[in-house]
């Protein structure tokens, strides 16, 4: 495979609430490569979301280093992290996080307005198969459709990485497959490095590599010799 786009070394994260210390990450090493599709598996509280947030510049590691294309994220200021998210990262969340007062098209335009080299909102919505519904408000869309708008919004700026936290968590399996298909298509057509968090073991079959988290550590790393199409996955 190509160069690693992310290199994380000995990353720890400790949350302090009052006198209680919660160790979310206890020393994680991981490399993600250009164009790779990775699935992060594990029970809730195992640290996978924390790692994703640190890689996405939403959170900071307590210790260790995270490099994105050779740049140390742990050394960036608040402002630089905002810039980093704006220019390089696309996020997809379990609860979509669309702006309810903006239509599908406008939710995507929200990002293309500030991106350096975006595709048009129409093109992004077309990629996720939602061009016909682009003037609908989020409240007028189904859960799956909302998630695909969120994906369109995430990829419209042509990010180098797409970070998805439980993208199918709130969806039934049929709708979930549509969302996975959209992610998989983008990974293949645009070559976007994609990391998907899930606690649904069935989804791991679509990934190049699977990282299983346990108690703040990566317990197992698995390379899929053969990948399944999203349509073939069931859960």
């Amino acid at each position, binding site marked *: 495979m190509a160069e690693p786009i992310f290199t994380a070394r000995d990353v720890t994260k400790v949350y302090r609430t009052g006198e209680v210390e919660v160790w979310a990450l206890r020393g994680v090493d991981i490399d993600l490569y250009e164009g790779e599709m990775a699935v992060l598996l594990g029970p809730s509280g195992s640290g996978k*979301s924390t790692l994703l*947030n640190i890689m*996405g510049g*939403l*959170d900071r590691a307590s210790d260790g280093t995270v490099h994105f294309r050779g740049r140390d994220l742990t050394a960036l200021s608040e*402002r630089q992290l*905002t*810039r*980093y*998210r*704006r*220019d390089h*990262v696309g*996020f997809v*969340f379990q*609860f979509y*996080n*669309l*702006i*309810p*007062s*903006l*239509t599908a*098209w*406008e939710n995507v*335009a*929200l*990002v293309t*307005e*500030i991106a350096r080299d975006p595709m048009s909102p129409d093109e992004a919505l077309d990629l996720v198969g939602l061009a016909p519904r682009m*003037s609908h*408000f*989020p*409240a007028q869309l189904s859960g799956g459709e909302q998630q695909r708008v969120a994906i369109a*919004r995430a990829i419209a700026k042509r990010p180098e990485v797409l970070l998805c936290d439980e993208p199918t968590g709130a969806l039934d399996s049929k709708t979930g497959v549509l969302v996975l298909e959209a992610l998989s298509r983008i990974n293949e057509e645009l070559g976007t490095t994609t990391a998907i968090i899930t606690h649904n073991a069935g989804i791991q079959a679509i990934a190049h590599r699977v990282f299983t988290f346990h108690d703040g550590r990566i317990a197992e790393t698995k390379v899929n010799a053969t990948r399944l199409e999203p349509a073939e996955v069931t859960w």
Partner: protein
Amino acid sequence: MRLAVLDRKLVRDLARMWAQILAIGLVMACGVATIVIAMGSYRSLEETRSAFYERYRFASVFASVTRAPLYMHGEIARLPGVSAVALRVVRTTVLDIEGMAEPATGLAVSIPDHGEPAVNRLYLRAGRLPDADRAGEVAVTEPFAAAHGMRPGSRFGAILNGRKRTLTVTGIVLSPEYVYAIGPGDMVPDQRRFGVFFMPRSAMEGLFDMAGAFNDVALRTHRGADVDAVVDRLDTLLEPYGGTGAHDRSIQTSHAFLDNELVQLSAMAAVIPPVFLFVAAFLVNMILSRLIALEREQIGLLKALGYGEAAVAWHYAKLVLTIAAVGVLVGALAGNWAGRALTELYAEFFTFPFLIFRQSLDLYAIAAGVTAAAALAGAARALWSVVSLPAAVAMRPPAPTRYRTVFSRGTALLRVFSQLTVMALRHLVRRPLRTALTALGTGLAVALLVTALFSFDSIAFMIDTVFFRTERQDATLTFAHPRAPRALQDVARLPGVLRAEPFRAAPVLLRNAHRERRLAIVGLPPEADLARILDRDLEAVEPPERGLVVSERVAQILHLSVGDRARVELLERDHRIVEVPVTSIVQSYVGLGAYMRLDALNRLIGDGDRISGVRVSVDRAALDRLYAEIKRTPAIASIALQGISRDRFRATIEENITIMTSVYTALAVIIAFGVVYNSARIQFSERARELASLRVLGFTKTEVSSVLLIELGTVVLIAQPLGWTIGYLFSLAVVRGFESDLFTIPFVIESSTFAFASLVVLAVAALSALIVRRRINRLDLVRVLKTRE
């Protein structure tokens, strides 16, 4: 004692929302305080006044005549409805007070030689009443005595009927007739330059050649008597003696000024507290609706656990009542304090022997009740939603909000605005009522400031008009009786007099059909420069060769228009009735204005060339010599010093302007902060998730804040013209409410007043925005995204 678990939740909710609760509580406190101040002061003043009037037998009908025989007493006393009569000698005199260069004006009033006056009794503050057997003893009113440090035993000089006398103060007194004592030609009381003193009748008779005669009547009527009928009958009786028309209390100067103050207080009680309570109700509605939306699932859970609907609603009602309690407590304390301060301020302007400070418990009960009612009214809708929400529905997330497709893609707006702006604008349109009420609430803060401060614009304009365009003289000398024109030359020769202009003031009863008003027609010479008549555009106009000019107020009262023939009853001499055409309507802010050319007025009266007084402009360097000369000039009955009056009026206004501006700015800041801060907090709470999403997408803090700021800014900007309009209308109502025969306030609002009001409110809005912006900066991105709205 352990708190019930729900009450512990209440305590924690209160602690968490303290800033918002305090902001609303303060708005309520303003409502409570203004109720306590306005109603409390109204009661204090009203009850003090009626107690003083009752105990000291304040007259209800007044009249003056040139000279009438004392034996009329029986006839007047027998008029139906009359209970007591005092026939007095009253004269204005020039006083010569040691250590004071300018002459003061004294009003000499006779009292019976023995026993108390039948009406208008005196309250003796110190010393004793003057003894009829000792020459030159007088009792003086307290403010004048205080201004000159007079005590029983002090002496001062007075020019009485042309001779200088030394008078000895035996007592310091207060009279219900002179609670508010204002000198001739003055616009605010000047205790130094105007005083009332009382002398035994026999002494007055001797000094003023009034043996067996009187020139002033004051009488009391029985309760329920027809005062108008008494006035009419008294007029008929006095007509042959140069009666200038009897009148009731309504135009008795002291009473009228007190009335005016009471009107102001009741207007304040009627307008200001409702503004605050309305805003408070709206704010309660806003924060409670939001709290209940946030706690929807908890409400469902409580109901599922078996709490009754009433118990859950009561839990939230208690929150509202706690806010009201904060408001009532702070407001009651502030109101009590400010009420006392205001009552003390009254003591400066109005002299009562005692001050009944009425802030009885029921007043606080009313204020508390009204405030709690307003708070609960504001909470009603939100509380109802708590009651009517079925538990099972409450546990599910609410139906998604529907946005309107206003500003939809392809419209011109979208090309102009960024998506962030579109977000902000759609959110505004989504809750039009709340947006409108927020704008209205903010606008009310602007309006309050405009209404409070415009009066200074109007008064400044009035000073400018009155003192610099119409009454431009430095002093007005008034003779005891109308005199021949030769007196003008005498005055013109006085030291320092630069210009002297005669005038005649003739008391008349002006009638148009069944409407009538007692006033003085002022006769002015042609080409007058000191006293000028201003037309409605405030341009100086000449008095007409023939015919009458009346002020707008007079025209309005008597329904006169140009070309009408007004019936003029000449009260001074023979009560002849003549018809005079109205030739134009002019502007006049003080008193009831009616003007003629001096020669025309003299022809009308028919007693030859006569003048009542002279207006002079003076070389300031020669003032002292002029004053000294005036004190020696017997013919001059009174002197009004417009120059000093002007300065004093300015000083009084400037003192008030600072107090008023700070008080009302504080009130406006409280309203504006209450509205803007709460609305910003609620917007933030409703949209925290959206804003966090924007931050995740890579928008900077500034960009994210701009969404809220655009929304807030739009509402605050809409509020400005709204506030100006409401303020304009409020001010207009104030001007209309103040119109009286004593004065008319011109309606003037300078643009600087609008600007000041807006600047205060914009500054408060900016501060609120900054506070909320700090919260945006501290948004916890990860946590917000993990939770479902």
